[in-house]
């Protein structure tokens, strides 16, 4: 390699570079099969690898835009923002982290909520943005979820939530833990009223999010091979001092153990959830 490099004119040399992987721009790699993918094509397939069917993450906004009908989508509580009530500081101030993630993601916090229709059926839907602090649940996520649920309650229309979260947000300490109770309480009302709630678990759905609303769906649905569980695999490995079985805490593992109703390919979500919701609401 080096002799070849030396033979090359300097102009070419800088362009080839020493960077690992694929340069930023129109090309990217599948995180599972390593195949080189053309970005616009990948976006069209909703970040599902056309070669190996691996489901890569979607932003919350892209998720809802792909899921809801194009006409008549309306964002709910777009201006809700986190505050640093505890003046939390680790290696960095929480306040600075908020700013940093707001800039990098373009979102105010880790959850987007929208009203709209799914194949003509009026629904409310929320989606996590994993790129915002690992989709962690703090007060904003809890409040947004609750308000979206209230829209579903008041209008008696189905509520669909897409989870992608590492769990509770440590920087909001006990306030974030309490969001588990808050979101589960509003779902108790939804259940009493007989309004359908569908939880779609995407990679990853862990900790406080899985141990609250994500597991409380009338339908618990997952995308293929998503990591879903209460404790993280590393914590479990350290606790039990055992190698974890192949496929542990993946969607297929949960389906086998009775935790899920179904696993749905991202490209079929609209059709199949529209069908299920039409049945549940007897339309």
């Amino acid at each position, binding site marked *: 390699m080096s002799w070849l490099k030396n033979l090359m004119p300097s102009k070419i040399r800088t362009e080839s570079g020493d960077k690992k992987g694929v340069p930023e721009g129109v090309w990217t790699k599948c995180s599972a099969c390593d195949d080189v993918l053309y970005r616009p094509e990948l976006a069209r397939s909703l970040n599902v690898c056309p070669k190996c069917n691996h489901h890569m993450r979607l932003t919350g906004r892209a998720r809802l835009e792909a899921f809801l009908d194009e006409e008549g989508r309306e964002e709910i509580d777009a201006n809700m923002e986190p505050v640093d009530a505890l003046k939390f500081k680790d290696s960095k101030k929480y306040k600075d982290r908020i700013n940093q993630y707001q800039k990098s993601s373009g979102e105010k916090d880790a959850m987007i909520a929208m009203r709209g229709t799914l194949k003509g059926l009026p629904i409310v839907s929320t989606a996590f943005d994993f790129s915002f602090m690992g989709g962690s649940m703090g007060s904003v996520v*809890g409040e947004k979820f609750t308000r979206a649920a209230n829209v579903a309650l008041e209008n008696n229309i189905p509520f669909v939530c897409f989870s992608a979260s590492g769990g509770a947000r440590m920087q909001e300490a006990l306030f974030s833990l309490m969001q588990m*109770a808050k979101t589960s309480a509003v779902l108790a009302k939804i259940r009493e009223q007989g309004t359908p709630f569908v939880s779609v678990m995407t990679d990853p759905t862990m900790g406080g999010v899985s141990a609250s609303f994500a597991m409380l769906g009338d339908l618990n649905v997952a995308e293929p091979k998503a990591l879903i569980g*209460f404790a993280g695999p590393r914590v479990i490995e350290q606790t039990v001092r055992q190698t974890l079985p192949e496929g542990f805490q993946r969607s297929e593992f949960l389906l086998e153990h009775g935790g899920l109703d179904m696993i749905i390919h991202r490209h079929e979500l609209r059709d199949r959830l529209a069908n299920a919701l039409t049945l549940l609401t007897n339309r």
Partner: protein
Amino acid sequence: MNMNFLDFERPIAELEAKIEELRHVGNDSEVNLSEEISAMQAKSGKLTEEIFSKLTAWQVSQLARHPQRPYTLDYIERILTDFEELHGDRHFADDPALVGGIGRLDGRPVMVLGQQKGRDTKEKIRRNFGMPRPEGYRKALRLMEMAERFKMPILTFIDTPGAYPGIDAEERNQSEAIAKNLEVMARLKTPIICTVIGEGGSGGALAIGVGDRTLMLQHSTYSVISPEGCATILWKSAERASDAAEAMGITAERLKELGLIDAVIPEPLGGAHRDMDAVAESLKNTLIDNLNSLDELSGEQLLSTRYDRLMSVGNFKES
């Protein structure tokens, strides 16, 4: 008496050792050392007061995990009469890490539940260090729904490092077990009083922690993640646990200031383990008082007040 002193109590331990020594000498000889002993005892008391008046969050979390701290069954034994322990989730197993049963509080039938830690090694393992599996939470759910049917108030005692992170627990859907309890507790038509008596560790604590009152013993803690866990993730080192404990504000005092809990129950000087009967007595009185005030609410009011409290938790702004 072996007091099992913690690191930060070392000066007290040294003084107590000296007192013990003097007592020994006093017993063996003709010399009367009682005056000297009582002077030193006074000094030990003052020292304890001084140390305990400025505990750090990390020191409190060590007290919350003190090996001699009273556990759920210690309180049940002291607070309730006619107690009958009830077992099993009716589906899979009985989980000794979470105990429950019926008894009388001041003559009145109640349902009581709590995580249970073990005192010696064998018992610690049997109780899984107070870390319930899904069947523990499902037993709790069964008992709470039974309490609603028989119009019994529910008292929960929270004392766990967290729900058990194990392969079997995941297979049986630990997440769902916790989530279900949160949902059901929010709407149970009977008063629920939750008391953190030791460690309030994350979702595994909250799973029996939704109710009309949240009380904490003075030296108990309640947090979204253990200080060590938080330090490992945010500081990349478990050694920074004391910083994490401080930053998260896990003590009863701090959580009361933040409005996240209703009341702090004082402990005897030096911690609950120094006088189990005394702390059980004040816990009992606090529970009775709170039950009496909840009795004034109608069923509707009870549920709507509980619901509104849950909905009001959180900080955010809207531009």
